[in-house]
């Protein structure tokens, strides 16, 4: 008796279950969020297409001259170009890599493998997370204070020699400032890579009699290398694109007479400029000479090629290793 009742109810129910009601609200919701993703990506597309279109007049006719030219006061000058900026940006990238990379990896290995669970380690972790969120202009102030100005207060701390060593407003100061800026990024990504090393590998090394540093050198660093490299590449591309700290450290946009060859290290302690600074300068010059808008767009294309190549290499590298190790 009871069973038949349930049976009937179920039979009536099936129609309710199988009937397809169109889910308007759900469809609308999906459409809205898909739209927001598409708008975000469309902005990227418009940005790239518009910039390339703006800079085409320079790039299509004199790309090589543009890469080899220098800062000029008129936009139709045959020798107008971004070489001085490339010099500054490339050296900033190199200085960042050789300083932030070892310190960052050392810090990451220390925090993951060596650090005792002490208050000091917790403080270091907290500080690193918060340093990553400090605005870049503030790092510029630090660079100005530390590497450029010979302020009396700082001489008191015994660090006045830093400004002498860097030559004040120089590529060296800028590179070191940006190395400090990207240090937290390098540490955080390297930490993630080190954390992902399987415990079995570490224990295997210990079992064979390795000391801690031997274990780090033979197991952790090789296994974590792709992750660490990804982080360093991202950090370098961030440093190359950064402009605000350079303005504060004193990158100059006009009156730069020297145009050193890329491997000429004597330019490191002299007045300098960098690609992002050139872009800012030319954008502001366009009121006086509209041709500079085209030049600025062309310089942006050069900068974007550098930065995006680095980013894409980093992302592809990471995805490939993630897939391999599943």
């Amino acid at each position, binding site marked *: 008796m009871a069973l038949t009742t349930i049976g009937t109810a179920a039979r009536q129910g099936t129609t309710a279950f199988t009937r397809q009601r169109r*889910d308007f609200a*759900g469809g609308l*919701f*999906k459409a*809205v*969020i*898909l739209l*927001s*993703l598409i*708008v*975000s*990506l469309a*902005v990227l597309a418009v*940005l790239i297409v*518009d*910039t390339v279109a703006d800079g085409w007049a320079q790039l299509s006719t004199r790309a090589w001259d543009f890469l080899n030219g220098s800062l000029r006061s008129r936009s139709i000058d045959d020798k107008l170009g971004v070489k001085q900026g490339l010099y500054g940006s490339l050296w900033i990238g190199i200085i960042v890599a050789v300083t932030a990379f070892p310190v960052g990896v*050392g*810090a990451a290995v*220390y*925090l993951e493998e*060596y650090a005792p669970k002490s208050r000091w380690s917790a403080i*270091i972790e907290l*500080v690193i*997370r*918060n340093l990553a*969120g*400090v*605005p*870049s*202009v*503030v*790092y510029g*102030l*630090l660079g*100005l*204070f*530390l590497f450029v100005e010979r*302020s009396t*207060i700082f001489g008191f701390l015994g660090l006045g020699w830093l400004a002498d060593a860097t030559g004040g407003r120089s590529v060296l100061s800028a590179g070191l400032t940006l190395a400090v800026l990207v*240090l*937290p990024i390098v540490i955080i990504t390297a930490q993630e890579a080190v954390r992902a090393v399987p415990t079995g590998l570490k224990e295997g090394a210990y079992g064979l009699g390795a000391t801690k*540093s031997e274990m780090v050198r033979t197991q952790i660093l090789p296994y974590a290398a792709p992750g660490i490299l990804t982080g360093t590449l991202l950090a370098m*591309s961030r440093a190359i*694109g950064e*402009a*605000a700290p350079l*303005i504060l450290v*004193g990158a100059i946009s006009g009156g730069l007479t020297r145009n050193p060859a890329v491997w000429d290290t004597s330019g490191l302690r002299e007045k300098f400029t960098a690609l*992002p600074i050139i*872009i*800012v300068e030319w*954008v*502001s010059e366009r009121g006086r000479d509209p041709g500079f808008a085209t030049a600025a767009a062309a310089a*942006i294309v050069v900068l*974007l090629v550098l930065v*995006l190549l680095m*980013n*894409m290499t980093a*992302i592809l590298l990471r*995805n490939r290793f993630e897939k391999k190790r599943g």
Partner: protein
Amino acid sequence: MNEVGPAELSIEALSGSPRRVRRERIISRAMFCAASASVVVSALIIYALFAEAWIFMRDVDWSATWGQLGWFPRRGIYDMPTLLVASLWTTAIAMVVAAPLGMGAAIYLSEYAKPSHRALFKPILEILAGIPSVVLGFFALLWLAPNVVAHIGGEGGRGSMLAAGIGVGILTIPLVASISEDAMAAVPKSLREASAGLGARRAVTTVRVVLPAAVSGLVASLIVAVSRALGETMVVFMAGGAADAAIKTYSPYEGSLTMPAAMASLASGTDQVVGEGLTFQSLFFVGLVLFMLTLGLNLIGDRFVARVREQY
């Protein structure tokens, strides 16, 4: 029973060669120093900010920092409300752009996208995250101003807080998207399955189950984005519509200077920070205010992110 094994096993033999021990100690010290470097950097930042800002706060005529016509640092007029109002406007506009777009993209990627779509879209968003801010500044001034701002009541030919705000918003979309997506990815699958088992459709599951469960992460993404927008310099510097000085204005259609843009404009152009006696120090005073604001926001954001981790 015979004893097996080396009889002359001593403590010296067990502790390994002294050279190896010494090397271990040196390496571990070096790594400790590397880790402590970041603490030293923060200490230096705070010291630098306070040392110079203190001179400003001690010597400045405080009536020059409030209720003036605008921000004219080279003439000794440091009206903070001018910068604060501009910072508020650009940040608010940026959030109006970044919050819906970033979160919408995150919801799509985390709840709807097929794995193959995800693998395609995610790297593109990451590329957007890597675009330098000068590029966005150029874009805001030369594309957004004439093509967007001009259609919503502004002037297309010059920069304004509205153009700069939209530019900053575009810059923060990937940040909002990635933190929100992480938060949603941390919601256990069992919650979604339980909801689906009760007959909820995907949209209902997303809105009623996943989003409430991930709410601390979503709030964190907004807080971190606000802090990033407050500190963004180049977009406002280039597209904000004001150069060295700014007249106080409450309209987003006008040009003005935010805190970081004011710092950049003070330092740019000339070889030296020139002006009235305290101009150099005002740079550090504004920097200190900005640092405190962003630090506070980041600490709060951190708390929210930690809460997501604790829950699941």
